[in-house]
């Protein structure tokens, strides 16, 4: 299913499957690349990140949008923190664009969007809270996130919505860390809209570190 994905250069330090509906988090160091692969197609990967050494500094959708003057994330997009610093950049992606305005689904917003029968459904905010809770973070740490592989067009009159995806099996995004970060993913469990083609599926995550600098080239004296 992912035979068409080219290998990441460098030393592979992690290669995992994120099961359908599950949270995931890991440290990604400066210079490392985090690849997220949409294994079966049109699976939204909700994504937040925090500066490793000061988690009050975190991904800011608004700073990112303002700096690039565009709401869509594409190859080359620089993902900024709330302090205006580069946290990561999209080194490559095989999907035309990704979303950062749609936010994360929650039990509470599900009641508005779909009715009270969906309050008990699994939701991304719960996944983020669960993953973050093990690191001392909580609800104050929830901010507008990225939705890799999710499609949210905005019509000329402002009408917007989560519509059928433009991703497919084996498409991916590569994030090059520009600082030490904690990356948190909610493999979106939403079943009430097309963000996961109404069928949550697994993701694959790979982290590659740059090859060690040969001794002769190091600056050590």
């Amino acid at each position, binding site marked *: 299913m992912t035979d068409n994905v080219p290998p990441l250069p460098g030393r592979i330090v992690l290669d995992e499957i994120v099961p359908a509906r599950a949270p995931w988090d890991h440290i990604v160091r400066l210079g490392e690349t985090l690849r997220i692969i949409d294994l079966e197609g049109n699976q939204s990967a909700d994504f937040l990140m925090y500066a490793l050494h000061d988690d*009050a500094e975190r991904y*800011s*959708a*608004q*700073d990112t*949008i*303002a*700096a690039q*003057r*565009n*709401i*869509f994330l594409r190859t080359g997009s620089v993902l900024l923190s*709330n*302090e*205006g*610093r580069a946290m990561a950049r999209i080194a490559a992606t095989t999907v035309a*664009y990704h979303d950062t*305005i*749609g*936010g*994360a689904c*929650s*039990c*509470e*917003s*599900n*009641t*508005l*969007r779909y*009715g*009270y029968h969906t309050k008990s459904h699994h939701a991304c*905010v719960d996944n983020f809270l669960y993953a973050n809770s093990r690191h001392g973070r909580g*609800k*104050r*740490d*929830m*901010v*507008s*996130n990225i939705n890799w592989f999710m499609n*949210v067009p*905005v019509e*000329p*009159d*402002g*009408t*917007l*919505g*989560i519509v059928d995806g433009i991703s497919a099996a084996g498409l991916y995004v590569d994030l090059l860390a520009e600082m030490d970060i904690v990356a948190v993913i909610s493999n979106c469990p939403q079943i009430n809209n097309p963000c996961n083609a109404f069928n949550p599926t697994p993701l694959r995550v790979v982290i590659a570190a740059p090859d060690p600098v040969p001794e002769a080239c190091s600056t050590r004296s």
Partner: protein
Amino acid sequence: MTGTADPLGARAHARAMGGTVVEAMPTVPATRAGDLPSGVASETMLWDETIGPGDYAAKEIDRGARLRLVDLRGDACVSMLIFNAERPIERLNVADTIKVQWNAYLGAGRLLLSDMGRVLMSIVEDHARTHDVFCGASNEAANARRYGIGTNWSAHPSARDRLLLGAAKFGLGRKDLHPCINWFKGVRITRDGTTELDQGPSAPGRFVILRAEMHVIVVLANCPHVLDSRPRYTVTAVRASAWRGPITPDDDPIRTASPESERAFLNVEEYFRR
């Protein structure tokens, strides 16, 4: 020769300043505010403050209260945070606000939703129609790039730093600075996702009136929009006024406008069912 060499002289000097009137200041008590909207009685006034260029303010108002923001000179840019005053862990969520209402642009009749599926405030009147939920607050680095210096103690403070101080007065901190709304400076999205700023200046006197649907803390910062291309730090005063009002009734047209809106109000009523 200020006569401040001894404490009594210093006291006299300090007291002589009282009563000074400038543009950017609160009216205290708010019941003395002039130029009220028709039908608003002085005794219902809760807040009246003119927020100058680069300034900030924060205020707690109860459910039913109205908050009017007037762009006095046509170049205000008011970044706003909203918290549930009883439990500030509940706050404005701009993503849910646009997603749940299926529209990216704020205007009369729209709700400002919390991250708990409830409506914190609704927009009852909008005579500006140029607002922004996408670009957020300026930060020190952005202001330093445009104006040479962007520190909070400079002449070019950032909206983020001003919001931080407003929130800090309620015990809130850096982690509580959620994505904000910018009033009066409009951002539209083109087909390819480009953000287009209407940076003005606009006609003076444009205003919005919001209605608190829960007990809320609003934090306001009046700083140039982060995409404002003018080389000078350009922003003009905004007047914030609040007065008491009735809690939204069942047949309110904003409440009944959509099934999503109806449930947002129902969720508020469940919250207050105690």
